């Protein structure tokens, strides 16, 4: 029974990290209608920046902040110099551009940091806990607390601030938003800043969780999060978070209990096919 709970806790941790990456993708899709595949590369860069800052300064706080700022700049750069000029073409053009950016960043990281798996031997400033025999590692507590904090801040921004209202307006119609005086380009850039900073945090958390950082660490999340935003309902933040949590738990349970030779990374896609057959708009998407 204890194993079950520990697996469940691991699964939720995994789901939390998926949720953090998926969030950025959902927000970007919302305001720009672009599948931002390169988001997973931003996450990889975040992990490397975090590792570099941590190993050179020894401060995790600095690693989180520095990587968030670095990735925010990278994200806005991708938006300004890749997506914005390509917006006037059909949606597959920016999508291909995004894939190109993703592969380029992977290769650049390989050139800079080498094709090795680096370790991220950080000790998070959270206690290891044990409840009646169930062991909860400090990493898991860190993942939970940081995810909860980020979700809370994002919920506040999107539902309570002028920025959130403007983001909702821009995601519904850019031309009307312009006529309402909203500088939609600024709102889109802020969305990239938020999404990319959160991706950096997710990258560092994954690095610490698995104690691994490597150039292609974004490859599997790149397509898995695409499946997740579809399952959650394109553009629906809550749907993306819920789908991520379910997938994290399902994957972990599958490895823990199923004795069938089943590739766990396929699960997200089987779920996507299933959900699309059942509800083509996703679990939280609105039907149009």
């Amino acid at each position, binding site marked *: 029974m204890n194993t079950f709970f520990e697996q469940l806790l691991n699964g939720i941790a995994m789901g939390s990290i998926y949720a953090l990456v998926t969030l950025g993708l959902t927000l970007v899709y919302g305001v720009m209608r672009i599948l931002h595949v390169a988001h997973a590369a931003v996450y990889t860069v975040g992990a490397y920046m975090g590792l570099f800052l941590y190993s050179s300064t020894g401060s995790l706080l600095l690693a989180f902040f520095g990587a968030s700022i670095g990735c925010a700049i990278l994200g806005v750069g991708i938006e300004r110099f890749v997506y914005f000029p390509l917006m006037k073409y059909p949606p597959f053009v920016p999508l291909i551009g995004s894939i190109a950016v993703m592969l380029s960043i992977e290769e650049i990281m390989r050139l800079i940091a080498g094709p090795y798996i680096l370790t991220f031997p950080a000790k998070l400033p959270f206690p290891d806990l044990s409840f009646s025999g169930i062991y909860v590692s400090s990493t898991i507590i860190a993942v939970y607390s940081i995810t909860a904090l980020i979700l809370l801040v994002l919920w506040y*921004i999107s539902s*309570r*601030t*002028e*920025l*959130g*209202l*403007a983001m*909702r*307006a821009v995601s*519904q*119609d850019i*031309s*009307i*938003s*312009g*006529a*309402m*005086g*909203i*500088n*939609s*380009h*600024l*709102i889109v850039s*802020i969305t990239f800043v938020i999404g990319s900073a959160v991706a950096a945090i997710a990258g560092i958390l994954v690095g610490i969780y698995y104690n691994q950082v490597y150039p292609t660490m974004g490859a599997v999340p790149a397509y898995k999060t695409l499946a997740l935003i579809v399952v959650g309902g394109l553009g629906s933040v809550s749907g993306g978070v819920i789908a991520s949590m379910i997938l994290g738990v399902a994957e972990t349970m599958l490895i823990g209990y199923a004795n069938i030779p089943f590739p766990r990374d396929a699960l997200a896609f089987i779920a996507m096919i299933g959900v699309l057959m059942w509800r083509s708009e996703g679990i939280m998407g*609105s039907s149009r």
Partner: protein
Amino acid sequence: MVAPILTVNGISKHFGGLKAVENVDFQVFPGEILGILGPNGAGKTVLFNMISGVYRPTEGTIDFRGERIEGLPSHLVARKGIGRTFQIVKPFTSLTVLQNVLVAKGIMKYGHLSRIWGPWGSRKDINEAKEILERVGLIELADRKAGLLPLGNLRRLEIARALVVGHTMLLLDESFSGLRHEEIGRLEALIRDIRDSGRTIILIEHNMRVTMRLCSRIIVLDHGRKIAEGEPKDIQKNELVIEAYLGRKGVLDVP
């Protein structure tokens, strides 16, 4: 002679080889309702899109209260006090009627990074938004999702949003199309009321009777060119207009 509030000078918009608007001039004076008539594809909406900053004119200038506004992005034009509606109504469907108006209320804040992090919908903003909803007759529906409103109410909502933004001038793009007879009367009264409160209005309209009744002056476009300008009674008699737009005379015989 009163100085014009908006002066459009030699404006053209070409899309590749298509001359959507070609060398159009006109002036709009404070407090008037100017009508723009013309058959489909005459360039009326393109003209609006140039004034409101959606398109940059290929040639020509637009002067609003002494400032050049051609080529400005639409959010900056909006901030100068020019509100507009769209031919195809596009409310923010997932927001309520009140929230739709509040989006427009935030207008000055969205450009300032430091000011967008604050909460939206202050007591003052909500009260002002409700006053506007009261004025356009939507106050009872304030908390309804905008996506669920019928067309007549959506047109009013569009005008409510345009009123918040357009404290100086409103551009109304076919606000009467698709409305039932009794709704047309109410909307006419609303537009007169808006003009009487001191705003200048330009409207694009297909409904001839309404245009003749509401507007103090009318310009007529055909194939992107201005073919006539004048008071409704003169436009009614203009041979060019009758030929280009109406084809037959009877339609213009307004009681």
